[in-house]
């Protein structure tokens, strides 16, 4: 059995960031493995550990060289090998929409021919929440979105989909399938020192769009990034300033006025 996990290195913006044109300068960005993908990696590694047969877990990312650090974290946690897709065309794209990103990932998946693809519900930066299901459609695989529980047999994935308002949907999909993994589905491990050492020796292939047989035009998904801005503050909050003691005094007044612990 083969499991493919899609992992994205996401950027968080620092508390005091600035915007220049259509980008946020590097010094305001901190990079990390996307939280949702961390759970997907754990789910994949657990499948490999729990099943009697041999399970190969392959990670795929579309990202610059810097993202290898993130991919190595996945390798350190037990992923067997990884593929990173990058080239000038990707580097120059200001925005790759979810269906186009899915097309790129699909080219890797077609070459790998996995039984199961795990991706995250959403990427913390762009937050399209759409790439996994688009990938399933490109591959003509079955799928399930927002999965917070997974049981697998040779033919079927039985999942719980987390709907709104504390309701879960119990669904079965036949393999091969793409599942988008929700946080909380498991307890992601930390990489061990041994794992980190081993990760350095694991295979990490780099591919261009051309290597994957893709025309650069796959990125032309008719989406154009035209603006990046700090949102106008809608806040009409009264902000208390000063020392912790001063602000606590102010909060005390608000709380007592609202009836908290009124004696």
């Amino acid at each position: 059995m083969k499991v493919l996990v899609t992992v994205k290195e996401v950027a968080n913006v620092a508390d005091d960031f600035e915007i220049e044109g259509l980008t946020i300068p590097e010094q305001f960005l901190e990079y990390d493995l996307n939280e949702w993908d961390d759970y997907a990696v754990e789910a994949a590694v657990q499948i490999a550990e729990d099943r009697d047969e041999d399970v190969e877990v392959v990670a795929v990312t579309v990202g610059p060289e810097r993202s290898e650090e993130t991919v190595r974290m996945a390798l350190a946690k037990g992923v067997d090998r990884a593929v990173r897709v990058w080239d000038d065309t990707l580097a120059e794209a200001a925005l790759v929409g979810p269906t186009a990103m899915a097309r790129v990932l699909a080219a890797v998946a077609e070459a790998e021919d996995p039984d199961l693809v795990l991706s995250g519900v959403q990427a913390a930066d762009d937050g399209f929440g759409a790439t996994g299901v688009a990938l399933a459609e490109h591959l003509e695989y079955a799928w399930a979105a927002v999965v917070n529980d997974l049981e697998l047999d040779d033919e079927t994935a039985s999942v719980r989909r987390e709907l709104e308002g504390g309701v879960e949907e119990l669904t079965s999909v036949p393999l091969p399938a793409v599942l988008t993994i929700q946080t909380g589905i498991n307890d992601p491990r930390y990489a061990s020192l041994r794992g980190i050492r081993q990760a350095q020796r694991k295979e990490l292939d780099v591919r261009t769009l051309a290597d994957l047989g893709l025309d650069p035009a796959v990125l032309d998904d008719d989406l154009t990034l035209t603006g990046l801005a700090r949102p106008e503050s809608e806040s009409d909050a009264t902000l208390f300033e000063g020392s912790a003691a001063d602000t606590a005094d102010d909060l005390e007044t608000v709380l007592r006025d609202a009836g908290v612990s009124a004696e």
Partner: protein
Amino acid sequence: MSDGDVLAVAEHRRGELRPVSYELIAAGRDLAADLGGDLHVAVIGGDVDSFAERVNRAGADVVHTVDEGEEFNHDVYAAATTALFEAVDPSVLLLPNSVNGLDYAPAVATRLSIPLVSDAVDLTVADDLVVTRETYGSKVETTVEATTPAAVTIRDAEWPSVEDPGDATVEPFTVDIDAPSIRSTVRGFEEVGAGDVDIGEAEFIVSVGRGIDEEANLELVEELADALDATLAASRPIVDNGWLPKNRQVGQSGAVVTPKVYLALGISGAVQHVAGMKGAETIIAVNTDPDAPIFDIADYGVVGDLFEVVPELIERFES
């Protein structure tokens, strides 16, 4: 560009239309007016006749009913929406950015080879369709232009709910769905997250987020909740980590709370969290990041470290 029509697909679950259905009508009729076309609304599955009556609200020109199945099944929705799209030939396909919307919208857009922009908070028409969305945990507002036809999913509660009755014509629509294309089987539903406390009933809530850093630090906020005689609740990461049980989670996939006071400590204010607490009478936030979106909905705020403010507060309320 097609003829300027908009096709919106309503959402229902377990016999009830979900509120976003009426918000789709608001978003859709503005868009149709700008594009010079009609608003088509579709209801797929369930009691389609009664759903059709209910979505027949001001601005809807045609309501299409697809009588296939009871509950949401993404294979049925994807097939029906694709067929409707081909029949109506709209400029914009509008779907909800709900858990189920995200379970079929990307497949439909891919199948139709049209661009998809998800989680829209604003929509306008220039030469192209201009979509505003939030990125980087709502700290950045991004504008994306899409050529039409395009698919867009809209965020909950960003558009008003259309309440006035409409005079749309209702047209049954039949799709040929071949059995093998239905791959997923929905086996049922389960309510989760019940337990010892019902935070939905609480009058005062002290709620804690990832800013608490470590499980051991929870003691501090527990102490504050005790001192204030308040109920302890949390954002999702705290529950995902197993530090508090699921019934303490506030938000889209947790509980909706409407207390007199909601004190948010180290919570950024992600849209899925806000969905569960925006109805609180008084919202107070303590957060080190002045740009944290929680301050947009707070009535009172302290830009500061919860580890400094909370001990001071405990001192003032401890009896």
